[in-house]
């Protein structure tokens, strides 16, 4: 590992460790267990891989299997951490949550399948393709969560807002980085590693920034309406909206010669 890489790698480990300790000291691990687990798994992966690479080097079969195998675990942990943000944002609204997680989960799976399907799954590049596809799925679902919340006027409070944005931006940078790796393979490997570490460092800083404010008490759950209000009123409202739409479309029946 070059000295620049070593420095950034050490920085990555330090900021992760500091953030994890900070979260545990504030008992945030009770509110964000998946996120804290993700940080811990990531730390563990970094230390294990560094130890392995220093013994066997980067280009051995064992390093390749261990590297990508542990990456699958880290990605799964990231999916759970993102899911936790989804639950914090939408979970208080029972109906919207039920629709939202299915819709955004479906979007994620669709993006993953499409990215993997178009990318081809040959042995060497296939792992990178899957990695790329899963990151793109995480990014799409997270951006979709924010769009969904905006549509329903659900306020996304801190730290979920900055955490989610950081996850999304990190996944986007990861996808672009993987795309270049897929294209240039061995020639890009060193740069890929460096870019990945710098992007992760910036992301951890953003997560830390998200938790800067003192922990507030949980927003109380809203009082939900009776189910029959939705069942009776919404079809009626949709009909009224359709009528207004139809009214607007009558203007298109107006012939418009040049005058």
């Amino acid at each position: 590992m070059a000295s620049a890489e070593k420095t950034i790698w050490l920085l990555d480990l330090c900021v992760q460790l500091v953030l994890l300790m900070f979260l545990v000291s504030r008992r945030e691990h009770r509110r964000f267990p998946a996120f804290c687990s993700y940080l811990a798994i990531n730390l563990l992966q970094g230390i294990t891989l560094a130890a392995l690479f220093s013994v066997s080097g980067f280009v051995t079969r064992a390093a390749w299997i261990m590297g990508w195998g542990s990456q699958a675990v880290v990605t799964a942990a990231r999916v759970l951490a993102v899911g936790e943000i989804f639950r914090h944002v939408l979970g208080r609204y029972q109906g919207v949550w039920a629709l939202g997680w299915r819709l955004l989960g479906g979007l994620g799976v669709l993006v993953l399948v499409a990215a993997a399907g178009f990318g081809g799954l040959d042995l060497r590049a296939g792992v990178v393709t899957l990695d790329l596809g899963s990151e793109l799925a995480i990014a799409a679902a997270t951006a979709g969560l924010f769009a969904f919340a905006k549509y329903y006027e659900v306020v996304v409070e801190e730290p979920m807002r900055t955490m989610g944005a950081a996850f999304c931006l990190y996944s986007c940078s990861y996808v672009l980085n993987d795309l270049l790796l897929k294209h240039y393979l061995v020639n890009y490997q060193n740069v890929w590693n460096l870019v990945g570490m710098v992007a992760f460092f910036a992301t951890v800083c953003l997560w830390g920034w998200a938790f800067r404010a003192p922990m507030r008490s949980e927003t109380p759950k809203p009082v939900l309406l009776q189910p029959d209000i939705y069942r009776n009123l919404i079809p009626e409202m949709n009909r009224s909206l359709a009528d207004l739409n139809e009214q607007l479309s009558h203007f298109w029946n107006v012939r418009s010669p040049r005058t």
Partner: protein
Amino acid sequence: MNSFGIYFILIVIAVAGVGALLLWSLRPRKDRAAAGVPLEEIEVPGGHATYLPQMLQALHAADLAFVASRGDAALGRTVKRERRRVVLGYLEAMRGDFERLLRLARVIAVLSPEIAPAQEWERLRLSIWFSLNYFLLTTRLRIGFGIAAQLNGLGLEISDLTMRVERAMQELGERAALATEIASAL
């Protein structure tokens, strides 16, 4: 271009799309909803729906022809400009009605323990269609088209539609108290 080139471009476009969606979603809203307007203050839509026949009459070619025949060209242009302004104002008010109704429906959906995906999809589809229709109509009016109207055969249909809209609005008006109830639940 080889298949990897296409794949490369598709992924870059997808990432750009995700980034744009994220930026748009995180941008604060500029409308009344974001300004923290209490739901009670939002009127239940009504009034504007009843003026459709008058608005279409304002676009009637025969009216403009009549003015042109009685006055000079300058008067014709003034009347045309005024009517365009009135119709644009009417469309703006209709958009206000639509958005208020849409917002009330969204708040009901958010506060409901179960929602129907088909109804939600229908409302999303209607709002996209309305926005597109509104944009095209106002653009068309602003650049000077659509000022002359042909109302042949439309009279009956319009009065029927107006009645239906009025009825729907009246029913919703009866539920104005609901808005207060929902606002207190938020």
